[in-house]
């Protein structure tokens, strides 16, 4: 069945997963539904302890069995030890057919690939995957479907009961013996536990794993004792150097600086750039450079940001410190500066993944965004973006909050260099649609700036900013003139994954890759 972004979703996939094809970004607006609920084992007797000696013991206590769904968060990013630690024990116990429901998975989790191959893990649900897990999925080693969900879409799926978590494992930088969890004050601080909050609320069993047990009560807690069944102390929950990096040197890459300059010029020439505006940006070189140059102009003009949202890195914290941001509202921390800031600055506030981006609660923060600055592997002539599958067809990235913020923001800006080596970033059709073009307003490249024809108002802004305005087709043509027109990738028939739109419909599928055929 052809969906609203023109992708053919096989009937078999729709039937297997009991899902509908994507019908438009806001198609489900106003729907009513009943939320799911976990099965709770209550803790009435104050003499009972939540402390458990080992992962093995906790798995036994939780009644681990074949076919269960285990959940994890990705606040430790590439420094995470929790997923491997738990899965190793699951594997030793000989349990099969596990579904991993993670907020994201990365290269740090390469060691679970053999468990995909031997049937320990048969389903993966994640924002995305990188490294060897991506290869395993793309080459058809995962028995079931990989389901890629945005951060908001994951919360929606859990709250609406599309996925039910049997056991949630929550790595916590600090915990007390009764399960109050915080993301600061430990050895492996990650700043916030935003994406784990929904797991704690909706999983039947919630297991906290920490390397820093602190005296009771560990408050204010990101995750409260009322939702936690067990607490385990291990030597290390992660590698601090990979959880939060040091301050990144601002980029000196002139291409990125040029795109950053285009972005800033555009932003300040829109009517949304006024006192109290709201803004989210990524951590790429161009995004950071743009934030820094925007800060200078805000200072000059006496314009303050009312709300800074999303994953946070140092430069946004510096704007907060300079009094240029009223509230910094945080769902993930990328560097030490951000962790320091959320620890010390009362205007830097942790929110949950649902508050951030869930499309089916009563209104998420993303809906209040004026600007979001995003990156993309590919953007096509319909402004569709692809942030999950590379141009060779391999799963290699994550949706993150890309589709959520694009759907919410009044002005969605995507920055992408025209060429990545020989691969054109601006193309006729993206390999896989992850963010629908109807939510993408402006594309900034090193060769020029294109505005979605649906936004003639923003086109005027781009012209007023004296940017090198091109149509998206012109950008594509420039790219193809340099690289040659790429051949469409030939996939195998088997669907190995689905890209779930934030509302729970299927926006695209990912097919198994096959060896290149010369003829």
């Amino acid at each position, binding site marked *: 069945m052809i969906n609203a972004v023109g992708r053919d979703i096989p009937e078999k996939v729709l039937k297997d997963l009991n899902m509908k094809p994507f019908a438009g970004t806001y198609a489900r607006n106003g729907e009513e539904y009943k939320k799911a609920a976990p099965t709770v084992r209550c803790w009435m007797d104050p003499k009972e302890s939540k402390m458990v000696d080992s992962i093995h013991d906790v798995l036994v206590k939780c009644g681990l069995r074949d076919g269960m769904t285990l959940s994890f968060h990705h606040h430790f990013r590439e420094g995470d030890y929790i997923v491997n630690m738990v899965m190793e024990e699951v594997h030793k116990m000989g349990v099969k057919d596990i579904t991993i429901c993670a907020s994201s998975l990365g290269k740090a989790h390469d060691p679970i690939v053999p468990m995909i191959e031997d049937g320990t893990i048969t389903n993966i649900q994640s924002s995305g995957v990188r490294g060897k897990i991506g290869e395993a999925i793309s080459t058809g080693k995962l028995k079931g479907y990989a389901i890629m969900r945005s951060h908001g879409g994951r919360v929606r799926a859990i709250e609406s009961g599309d996925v039910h978590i049997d056991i949630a494992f929550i790595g916590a930088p600090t915990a007390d013996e009764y399960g109050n969890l915080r993301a600061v004050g430990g050895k492996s601080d990650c700043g916030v536990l935003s994406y784990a909050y929904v797991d704690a609320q909706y999983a039947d069993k919630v297991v906290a794993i920490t390397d820093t047990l602190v005296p009771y009560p560990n408050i204010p807690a990101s995750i409260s004792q009322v939702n936690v069944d067990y607490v385990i102390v291990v030597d290390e929950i992660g590698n601090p150097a990979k959880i939060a990096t040091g301050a990144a040197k601002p980029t000196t890459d002139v291409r990125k600086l040029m795109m950053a300059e285009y972005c800033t010029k555009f932003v300040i020439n829109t009517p949304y750039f006024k006192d109290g505006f709201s803004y989210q940006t990524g951590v790429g070189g161009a995004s950071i450079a743009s934030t820094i140059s925007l800060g200078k102009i805000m200072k000059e003009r006496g314009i303050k940001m009312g709300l800074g949202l999303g994953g946070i890195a140092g430069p946004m914290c510096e704007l907060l410190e300079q009094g240029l941001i009223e509230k910094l509202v945080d769902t993930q921390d990328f560097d030490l500066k951000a962790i320091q800031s959320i620890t010390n600055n009362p205007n830097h506030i942790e929110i949950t993944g649902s508050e951030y981006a869930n499309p089916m609660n009563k209104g998420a923060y993303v809906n209040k965004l004026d600007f979001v600055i995003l990156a993309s592997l590919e953007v096509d002539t319909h402004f569709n973006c692809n942030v999950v599958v590379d141009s*060779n067809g391999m799963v290699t990235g994550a949706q993150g909050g890309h589709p959520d913020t694009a759907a919410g923001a009044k002005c969605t800006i995507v920055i992408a260099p025209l060429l990545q*080596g*020989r691969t054109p970033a601006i193309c006729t059709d993206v390999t896989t649609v992850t963010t629908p073009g109807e939510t993408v307003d402006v594309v900034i490249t090193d060769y020029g700036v294109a505005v979605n024809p649906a936004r003639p108002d923003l086109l005027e802004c781009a012209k007023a900013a004296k940017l090198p305005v091109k149509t998206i087709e012109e950008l594509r043509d420039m790219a193809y003139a340099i690289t*040659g027109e*790429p*051949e469409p*990738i*030939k996939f195998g028939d088997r669907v190995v994954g689905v890209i779930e739109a934030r509302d729970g419909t299927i926006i695209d599928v990912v097919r198994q890759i096959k060896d*290149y055929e010369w003829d």
Partner: protein
Amino acid sequence: MEVLRTAMAGTLESSDAQVTVEPGEGKVELDIESSVINQFGRKIKATVEETLERLGVDNVKVKVVDKGALDCTLKARVEGAVFRASGYSEDEICEGKKLPWGGAIR
């Protein structure tokens, strides 16, 4: 031209290609690896074959390890390897052997 010995040109840096040629066994044998094989495999193969044809090379084993090189770079690397392998080393050029710019090199 006749490939007399093994020679290589190019690097494994991004946007480059490393091309190795060695005397063939009566025909052209290609072995192509590329970081963009799915998108440009046919184009890369065609460019390498056309370049060899222009150079009049029909007895060679060619290995290409491509890192996203544009056509102009692929041609340059094939020519670099072939000329080095067939009596046009830089020393020989400096001694007065002239390269066929605009002819076999196009």
